[in-house]
Structure formats: structure tokens, C-alpha cells
């Protein structure tokens, strides 16, 4: 059975020394949330994840969800775990204080999400979707809707969903047909079928708040004719408690590859009462608010699973004795050396480790920008921060989840045949990781978002907040005798990224296929350079601290060694990607469709 220990030391290092978390405390409303407070929150979350969520992860996968006469039940232990989750106040952590939230910085939510996803991804789906619904309502809902629905979403007493997909439309939401007909009291009657609705029905909460995309009778066709509605599972009594059923029926649940403890529902809405959220025909706006937050959260799923898989692979590699080291016996008292002596096993472990630590730093760095965007008094700073988040969102989503799958798979490989056996838990991580590459906008769509929307937007403005600081850091660090070995390879990769960026934008002006053909390679290249930026910063910090370090000497030593591994063994992938990008769209598009 796998184990999990939340990486609190690393989180503390990132908050304190890498991303300058303390500057957030100067933002309005954040004065009380210094690093110590933050760490005590994270310690609480770690304990909850390790002791409550992780132990029910494997049986949740084995047992799965069940449906009986339209009512979905979650695996044993989930309901009580969820109650504890609510009682401990976790859902309200970074929610708005006006609606009963605790108002913690969003940055911390990233750290908590990583831990939840690492310990029990299926469980994480429930609060994750509630948070998305909360966020969309908060940003776009009318005051009365907010007053009615937000407080219980914030406490977690009710949960939320996002109802987008229909049988005929996944990525292309312009095709959706669910109808919304105006009723005399200003509400709407919603009718239609939705599929792939995570947490669409379950036994954890008294009510479920669905956010549903539907089309008004006179709406224009396509994406510009979609409105967003709030549709509860149960209508409310005058006192605000759940009352009559609202015509939302769970028809069936899917049998899936992974996240089996999270019910993926087919929902039928039959004249269900719904209320418009935001403006008529502007539903995609609200949905994008939800999706952008959700995309970052999905990125954290990749990281969380990669982390838990890494921890278990490391202990297996240390314990399992197989073969002898190529350079001589390392464990003379045993029948064989532990796996960890083998260079190729180390290559896998170092790769996963370097990704995890780099991605953790990057995610928290992005998180601070969300806080700057939400709280900074200067609108110019808010816009710059938002531009940075917009740029990094597809990268965090797609690069983190692609790596999440690759890393869990590498970790499984270290187990050999045992990795393929359920009991060891490694194959569940691989299966669970796979969905993150697909939902909330498949990774190919993320890549298109990056090259098609984010790159050309406002003359490349979004790029400035990544390229300028890194360019300055490189200019400074390549001069530094100690940092040079880290900065030089990164500077080379950075130059490739600049060239590729210019190449794609110029080429795409005359042929959009060029951008499409380069998109996935480009996103990965960007992800690698972004992690390189984090590793350069971490190396700089640890190099400075090492000479005087005492108790954390091995921590900083490992950081520097991992940074070196990243720069020399992972970052060079950029050059291969660059060659592929520069080869253009021709080879991709040459073969006629009939030739396939």
C-alpha cells in the first residue's frame, strides 16, 4: 500500500525563499497571513490529507461509485471524510470573507490542492468543482443569487458542478442544444441532457448547485448564443433549506479508466428551474472564469500525483534489492544492491523529482500573481499580474498534466512487474493521471490557446511578464561564477524560446496551420524554460544558503544537485523541440486525408 507525506519543507522553502511570499502580506486583507500562519495552515492540511484522505484512496478506486434509482453513492469512507473536511473549514480557506470564507491568499490554495490531489484525486474532485461554481457565481452572479447560494458553497455544505458537455459537443460548445425558456417570474425552465458531469450526483451534501450552459429561445446560433444558469438539485424552502426536487435526474454514471471514486454523470434536466448568471448570451464569459481557475487546479492534479508516485518509487528503489551496481557492489551485506544504485533508475527518479520541485515553485509563483490580480491597489499591477496568469494557465494545465502522466508512469516502471499489480497502488496513479490531460480543455486545446490567443494578444503583451524578468535574471546570473553553470544552459534555451515564439507568430500570420502544428511542442518548450527559471532561482537561493546551512544542509545540497540535473538532463529537450518547430507545418500536413 502506497504512502504519502506532504512535502511541507519544500513548500516552506518556495514560499519563504523563492517566490517572496511575504510581499503578499502587504496587500489589503492579507496582513495577517504571514509565512508562519501559512505554514500552520499547510501543516493542518497535510495532516488531513495524510490521515484522512490518503487512507481511503485505494479502496475508493476499488469500490467506485454506484447508482441506484438515480441516486449515486460514493465509496465507503468518503462521506465521513467529506464531513470532516467541511467541519475543519477547508472549503472556506481562500473564499471571500463576505460569504463566510476565511479570505486566505489563493497562493495557499495551490499548495493545499497539490496535497489533496496527491492523497486522493477522486475526493478532490468534489471540492474542486464546488470552488469553480463558487468562483463563477462570485464574479458574475447577481447579488440575490450570491446571497442565496454562495454561503453554503463556501462552507461545503452544498457542492457545485459545471455542466457544459453534451453528447454532440465537447470542445466545440457552440453546438450545444440545452434549452432555457423564460418563466413568468424571471427564472428559466432548463431542459436538456448533459454528459461527463463530475460530481453531478452523490451522497456527500444536502444539495448540489449546477452551473449549466443553455440556449435562450431567440439566441444567435453558435458560441455567441449561450447563457449560464444556476440550477440546484433541490429548490429551496422559504427558510433556505433544500425542498422539492428540481427535475435534475442522474441517468447513469460512466465506467472509467481512473478517478473511479468520482462519479461522472449523465444528467437530464427536465423543466428544471434555473436563474441566469451574468448577461444573456454571455455565458461563455462566466464559464471561462470557472475554466481558467479549473485549468490551473487540474495542473495541480498532475503535480500531486507525480509527487505521491515519486515518494513511493523512491522508497521502493531504496528497499528493493535487485542486481549489482555497474561500478562495484554497494550493499555487500545483502544479496543484491538496492535499485537506487542503477543509473537508469536514478534518471527516472531525478526526472520526477526535478519536475515536482520545479512545478511546485512555478505553481506557487503563478498563485501569487492571482493574489496580486485580486488584491493589489494599483490597477496597472493588477492587469500585469492577470496577463501573467493568463499566459501561464495553458502551460500549467497541459505541461503539468503531461508530466504528471509521464512521471507516474516512470514511477510505476521502477516497480517492475509489481507496478502493474493493483495492490501496490502505482497503476492507480497512472490511470488517475490520464484524465487530467483530457478534461478542462484537452492539452491540444491548451497548446492552441497558447499559440493562437495568448501569444498574439495585444502585440505579445502577456509574454512580457515572463520574458522580461527572466531576461534580466539571466543577464545578471550568467556573469556570476557560481551561477553561470545554471544560467548558461538556460540562456541558450531561452534564446530558442524567443526564436520559436517569433517564428510561430510570423508564420501564423500567413498560415494558421503553422501555429497549430507547432503548438504542442511550443507549449512543452515553454514549460521547460519556465521550470528552468524556477530552478535557476532555487539554485541561487541554495547556493547562497549552503555555506552557513546547518540542519538543512542536505536540503540545499540536494536542491543544487537537482538544479544541475534539470539544466543538463531535462532542459536540453528544448533544442529537439526547437528543431521540430522550425521544421514547420509542411511535414505534418503533407499526407492527404485519404492517405491515412
Amino acid at each position, binding site marked *: 500500500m502506497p504512502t504519502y507525506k506532504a512535502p511541507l519543507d519544500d513548500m516552506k522553502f518556495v514560499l519563504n525563499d523563492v517566490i517572496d511570499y511575504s510581499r503578499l502580506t502587504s496587500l489589503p486583507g492579507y496582513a495577517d497571513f504571514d509565512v508562519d500562519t501559512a505554514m500552520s495552515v499547510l501543516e493542518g492540511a497535510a495532516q488531513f490529507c495524510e490521515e484522512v484522505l490518503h487512507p481511503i484512496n485505494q479502496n475508493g478506486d476499488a469500490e467506485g461509485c454506484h447508482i441506484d434509482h438515480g441516486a449515486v453513492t460514493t465509496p465507503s469512507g468518503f462521506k465521513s471524510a467529506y464531513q470532516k473536511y467541511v467541519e475543519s473549514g477547508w472549503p472556506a480557506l481562500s473564499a471571500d470573507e463576505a460569504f463566510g470564507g476565511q479570505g486566505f491568499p489563493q497562493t495557499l490554495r495551490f499548495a493545499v490542492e497539490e496535497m489533496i490531489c496527491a492523497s486522493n484525486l477522486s475526493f478532490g474532485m468534489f471540492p474542486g468543482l464546488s470552488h469553480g461554481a463558487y468562483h463563477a457565481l462570485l464574479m458574475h452572479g447577481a447579488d440575490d443569487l450570491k446571497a442565496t447560494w454562495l454561503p453554503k458553497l463556501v462552507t461545503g455544505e452544498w457542492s457545485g458542478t459545471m455542466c457544459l458537455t453534451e453528447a454532440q459537443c465537447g470542445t466545440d460548445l457552440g453546438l450545444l442544444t440545452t434549452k432555457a425558456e423564460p418563466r413568468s417570474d424571471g427564472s428559466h425552465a432548463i431542459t436538456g441532457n448533459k454528459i461527463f458531469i463530475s460530481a453531478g450526483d452523490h451522497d456527500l451534501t444536502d444539495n448540489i448547485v449546477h452551473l449549466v450552459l443553455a440556449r435562450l429561445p431567440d439566441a444567435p446560433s453558435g458560441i455567441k448564443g449561450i447563457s449560464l444558469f444556476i440550477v440546484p438539485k433541490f429548490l429551496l424552502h422559504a427558510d433556505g433549506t433544500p425542498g422539492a426536487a428540481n427535475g435534475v435526474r442522474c441517468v447513469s454514471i460512466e465506467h472509467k479508466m481512473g478517478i473511479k471514486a468520482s462519479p461522472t454523470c449523465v444528467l437530464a434536466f427536465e423543466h428544471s428551474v434555473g436563474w441566469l448568471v451574468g448577461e444573456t448570451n454571455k455565458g461563455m464569459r462566466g464559464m471561462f472564469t470557472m475554466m481558467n481557475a479549473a485549468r490551473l487546479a487540474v495542473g495541480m492534479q498532475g503535480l500531486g500525483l507525480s509527487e505521491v508516485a515519486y515518494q513511493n518509487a523512491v522508497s521502493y528503489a531504496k528497499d528493493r534489492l535487485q542486481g549489482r551496481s555497474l561500478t562495484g557492489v554497494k550493499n555487500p551485506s545483502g544479496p543484491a544492491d538496492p535499485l537506487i544504485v542503477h543509473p537508469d533508475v536514478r534518471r527516472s527518479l531525478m526526472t520526477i523529482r526535478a519536475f515536482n520541485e520545479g512545478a511546485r515553485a512555478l505553481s506557487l509563483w503563478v498563485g501569487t500573481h492571482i493574489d496580486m490580480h485580486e488584491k493589489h491597489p494599483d490597477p496597472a499591477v493588477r492587469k500585469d499580474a492577470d496577463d501573467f496568469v493568463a499566459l501561464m494557465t495553458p502551460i500549467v494545465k497541459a505541461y503539468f498534466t503531461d508530466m504528471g502522466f509521464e512521471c507516474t508512469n516512470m514511477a510505476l516502471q521502477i516497480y517492475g512487474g509489481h507496478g502493474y499489480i493493483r495492490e501496490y497502488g502505482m497503476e492507480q496513479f497512472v490511470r488517475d493521471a490520464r484524465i487530467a490531460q483530457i478534461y478542462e480543455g484537452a492539452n491540444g486545446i491548451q497548446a492552441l490557446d497558447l499559440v493562437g490567443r495568448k501569444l498574439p494578444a*495585444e*502585440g*505579445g*503583451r502577456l*509574454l*512580457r511578464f515572463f*520574458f*522580461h524578468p*527572466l*531576461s534580466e535574471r539571466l543577464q545578471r546570473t550568467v556573469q556570476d561564477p557560481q551561477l553561470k553553470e545554471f544560467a548558461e544552459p538556460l540562456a541558450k534555451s531561452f534564446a530558442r524560446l*524567443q526564436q520559436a*515564439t*517569433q517564428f510561430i*507568430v510570423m508564420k501564423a500570420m*500567413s498560415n494558421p496551420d503553422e501555429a497549430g502544428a507547432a503548438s504542442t511542442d511550443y507549449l512543452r518548450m515553454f514549460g521547460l524554460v519556465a521550470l528552468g527559471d524556477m530552478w535557476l532561482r532555487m539554485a541561487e537561493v541554495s547556493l547562497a544558503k549552503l555555506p552557513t546551512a546547518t540542519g538543512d544542509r542536505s536540503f540545499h545540497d540536494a536542491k543544487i544537485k537537482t538544479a544541475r540535473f534539470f539544466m543538463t538532463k531535462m532542459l536540453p529537450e528544448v533544442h529537439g523541440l526547437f528543431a521540430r518547430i522550425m521544421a514547420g507545418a509542411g511535414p505534418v500536413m503533407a499526407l492527404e486525408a485519404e492517405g491515412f
Partner: protein
Amino acid sequence: MAIEIRRAAVIGAGTMGSGIAAQLANAGIPVLLLDVVPPGATDRSALAAGALTRMRTQHPAPFMSAEAMALVTPGNVEDDLEALHEVDWIIEAVFEDPAVKAPLYRRLDAARRPGSIITSNTSTIPLNALIAGQSEAFCADFAITHFFNPPRYMRLLELVSGPQTRPAVTEALHAVGDACLGKGVVVCKDTPGFIANRIGTFFMYCAMHEALKHGLSIEEADAVCGKPMGLPKTGIFGLTDLVGLDLMPHIMTSFHATLPAGDAFLTLPTTFAPMEKLIAAGNTGRKSKGGGFTRLVPDAKGGRTKEVVDLQTGDYRAERAPQLASLAAAKGRNALQTLVSFDDRGGRFAAAVLAQSLSYAASLVPTIADRVSAVDQAMRLGYGWAFGPFELIDQLGADHLAALLTTHGIAVPALVAMNRPFYRVHDGVLQELLPSGEYAAVPRPSGVLSLADVKRKGKPVMKNVSASVWDIGDGVLCLEFTSKMNTIDPEIMSMIRQIITTVGDGSGAYTALVICNDGDNFSVGANLGLALFTINIAAWDAVEQSVADGQQTYAALQHAPFPVVGAPAGMALGGGTELLLHCDAVQAAAESYMGLVEVGVGIVPGWGGCKEMLLRHVAPVQSDPAKAMAAAGHVFQTIAMAKTSTSAADARALGYLRNTDGITMNRDRLLADAKAKALSLVPGYTPPGPRTVVLSGARGKSMLMAGVLAMAAAGKVTPHDEVVAGHLASVLTGDETDGTTPLDEQALLDLERTHFMQLAHTSGSLARIEHMLATGKPLRN
């Protein structure tokens, strides 16, 4: 012998008369501007003098320069008639009433020199009515020259001769109108409203009524008439506001009084209810405080928002962006066909308006003009239509129009029934369909060289995505920009370098280069979007390289062993002006708007603009430190305030053009003039040698900045203005120079590049570039 126009007189100092006088002066012709003596006036020429005063501050400016302003002499028709003896051309622009004009003509006839020309600027009265009762000599020397408002800017001149008019008079007017006044002269028959107003007024009334009938808002009607049909942005209702709503019924009455029975014009309703209501309320258009169909009202933000009349209710409401499916669909190759076939309000409106107005135009040839090309030209130049009616019919297809007419119950005019294209290209020559069914070349005034004609005849000598090079004959090449808004980008730079290689030492097939294009604007400067993107990704080496490339390319062109003539028209900004500064000579269209406007986007001119201005203005006077400082101060002010010329003459005053650079009044003649200038430079051409200039250094910089700091203290300069001005002052004073060492061209270029790069690193400059790209306006940060 040809009649020469050396002096002229304009009678009537109203809007049209004074504007015509100004344009004559712009052409360098001294003008007497006369009007009546106001009762009891102390200044008996107060009307003409007042018009001159008014025109000094008028926008858009009627005069191109202060020199032109001095050429107009105010007077009155009682004391100054004798002076008419000295003039070659008298233009009458008084009230549109034969009872006023006839006695005036008799007095003018008595006062004028025999053989001088008299014309009327009438827009409504037929020539035969004007000459009734006048002397035989008068009739022989009389014609109608109908200008459009404002006379400096509207390029149409309708020319109507009578049966008695001497051919020499017509020829002289044609020549002076074309080459001196810069007009497209269109010969019209003596029919009511001539060409442009006849068709234009019909179109306006027709569109207003159809808009109301089909339930279109003003914004929707103007949008449908705009992009797809090619009418100017002013729109139908905007144009009515400009003309004055109260004038429209008079124009209508005049047409009703003069048009022959059976004319389709007479079937249009004579009144338009929403307009009547506005006139009754005193809202007669732009000239009235209350506005017209549109008005600007102060808003909460301290700006002004546009309000528009709701045609159905007659009340004002906030302007709304038009939302019509037909508008969205009407794009691409068959935009017009798509539009008229589209089943929504917009489509039905377009179909009704085009059916009536295009068939009306087609029914008028050859009654109002011999050629369809004359009609199209009149509508393009007089009403600013992108396409004349016959060009629109070609876009729609004559058969398509015929079918449309049948469904609307309108008779198909003979020209349309021929079902042949009105224009075609035959053997590389643009031809038009004659009423006889034959095709003949579209006439070009003699001496006009059109790049469009050159392009029809053959292929470019060289070409890339942003530029083409054409052989315009006699060994002269023409570099044409083809990038968006003719922005200057790396492709254009590369083309210039290719030209330098191709022409070589000028001993081969080509001996000279002209830089000219047919666009509305010569060039709006460097491609800012590209620059911003490169800056955003921190590709600083690439940014600096693009500055260096531009510097080297322009310098190489300047020092190439063959003459280069720049020929701007419209805007030539930033890098466009810098290119012109590097040409051996410039032949500029009169309407050339030049400026080193880089500070508006937070940078300094970096492609040799600072260098050329210093070498041109400071170097010649450098032996006298006081004069050199004054010259540097002038250059500093010009660039720091991003001064843009309001005409070619003004560009001379600002120092962007030399006195030896030429000005062409008629844009159509620009290429021919530029080519002639280039050929005149070929014999014995030697490129300029290396040049140096002594700059004043730190002391000079502090003097330049003293003015900036004073303005900053007065709140007239923004914080980032001060930053940019500081860098500009450094460049223009040589930064660390000791005040005695001559700086060579490369040193000046290095200064430009260094300070350009420093500014490109500031967030203030990036904000300026972004703002310019997003809004088209400079940011004052």
C-alpha cells in the same frame, strides 16, 4: 496661344468663394477676393477680410502655408472692380440666384480685360440660363467651374462649357484645374446638378427613405452604405449633417424645378419626416448647436458621447454598434452580391438603394457625361465614394442588377441591358464600355504616369510580401510599398538593399529610383506591432539589430551611386519621413503630412532621422555657436513635439523638406514629376560624400532641457515626455561630445541607437507603443 492664369479673382467671400481663393493661393496664384460692401461698414472690404481671418484658424485649414495666405488680397465689388483688369480668371461664387448673378456679370464684363476667363461656381443653375442676356464676348469666355466643399481637400472639379465657349477657355481651365489646383477635372454636360450632385443627392434621399422604410437605424444604414458599398465613413446621415439639413429641401426644390419630366429623381418623396422634425427644432446639422441626425453630448467622464436620432421616434439616443447578419456576411469577393441577396433588413435596404441609384446613374449616360468613367470619377472625387456607380455594377454583375431591377419593378437601362462589364483590361490597358457597345481606353490626362497603369501592363522587376519594384520607363525604377498601411518592415529594408545591388553603379538597365505608391498614405512609419512583439519577448539583440539594419539600409541608399527621389502623398510619418530625409530629392504631393513622430510612441527617431536633421540644419551653421544652438533647438522642438506638417509647404517650414524639393499639386501627376526629377539628377550624378557635424554636448543639452523643465513646471509636459525629451536632447547634442570634435554619420547613428534602446527598456515607452497600436492615438503618460 494657350491662356495663362497668372492672377485670379474670386467674387463672393462665402465658404466656397473664400475656399476657392485659398486653393488658388496654395497653387501660387495671387487672388483678389471681393464681396459686397456691407451697409454702414467702416471697412468696406469687411466681408472678404473677415473670411480671411476666419480661414486662418479654420479646420481643416484652407491654406497650405503662410505664404499662400499672403497671396489673397481682400477687396469689394464697388471699389476694386478696376483691379479686375489685371486678372486672367474671374470666378463667381455668389448667392445661387440668377437675378443676383446676371447684373453682376454685366459689371464684371465691363471691368475685365478682354479675353480673360469668367466662370461660375454654381451648383444648380444651368449654363444656358447664366449667359442669357450677356455679351457675345462674355459668352465666349464663360464656363462653369464647380468646386466641392472644402475646395482644398475635395478633389473634384466639374467643368461645363457652353456651345459658345471658346475651346481655348475650356483648355486653359482644364489645365489650370488639373496641374495648378490639383483637381480631377471632369467634363460635364450642361444638365441640372451636373454629375456628382445629381447622383449623390438622389442616393442620399433614396437611402434615407429606404432606411426608414426597412426599419434600419442610422448606424445600420450608414454601416451598410459604408464598407460594402464603399461610401465614406461620414455616412449618409453624417453627410447631411455636414451639408446642413436646412439646405436639403432647397436642393430638392431646385432639382424639381429643373429636371425633365419622367426623371426618376422626381418620383422620390420630396420630404423626409425625421429631417423636417429636426429642422423645425432648429437642429440643422453640424453648424447648429443642437446637432442634426447625430450630436455630441457631454458625458460623466468629462468627454463627449455621440448620440443619434432614432428614425422611428425622432428622439436622440446613445450611439449603438450596428448588429446585422447581412453586414457580417458581406465580406470577401462577392460581398455586394451577398449583401443584396441577404434576407434581413440590411440586405433588403441595400437591394432597394442600389437598384434605384445604380439604375438611375446608368440611365443618365450619355445625358450628363459622355463616358461612364467620368461619372465614376466624379463620385469618387466629389463624394469620396470608394467605387463609382459603374464600378459597383461591375462588382454586382450587370445581369444580377438587371434581375434585381425586375423584382423592384424598375426599367432596365440600356447600358445595363448590354450585360457587359463596364471596365476591362485589354492588352494591359484599362478600357471602359461606351454607350455604343464598343470598348475604349479610359482617358488619362496627358503627362500623367499612373502606377496602376504600369502594373496592368506587366510584372514587377522584384517583389516580396511588403514591397514591389516596377520599371516605370527610361531606366527609372519605382519602389512601391505593399505592406499594411505601408508600414516599413524588414522586408522593405531587404528590398531596398536588393535595389541597391540591382541598379549597381547605374551603368546597367536602370539609372535612378523613385519611391512612390498609390496608397492613401506614403507610409505610417515602422511596423510598431512587430517592434513591440520583439520587445515583449525581450529579444533585445533583435530589436537593436532592426534599428541598425534600418540605419545601414537608409545610409546605403543615400550613398548609392544613383539618384533617389522620394515622392510622398498623404502621411509620411516616423520611418517614412526618415526615408525621405535620405533621398537625394523629394517630390511631394501638396497634401503631404510629414513628421518625425517617434516621441509619441516613446522613442527617438532611430533610422537616421536625427542624424539627417542635424546634418541638414546644424552643420551648415556650426561655425557660429549661437546659430548652431538655435538650429539644434529648432530640430529639438520639431522632434520633441512630434510636429507633423499640414501640407508639403508646411513640411518645408518645419525643415523636413528642402527648398529644392518639389511640390506637385495634383497627386495623379506625382509619379511623373518624381520620375522627371530623378532623370534630371542622372547626368553626372555623384552621391553625397561623408559628412560631419559639431554638436554642443552637455552644455547644449542643459539648454534644451531648460525649456522642457519650464514646461514641466507649468504642467505642460508629462513625466514620460520628460524622459523621452532627455534622451532626444542627448542625441541632438552629441551626449558626451566635447563641443569641438566633429561627429561623423556613424557616431550620430550610434547615438540614436543607444538612446532608442534605452527608451525601449522603459515601461513608459512600452505603454505608449501599446496605446498607439490599440487606439491609434498617442498616450500622454
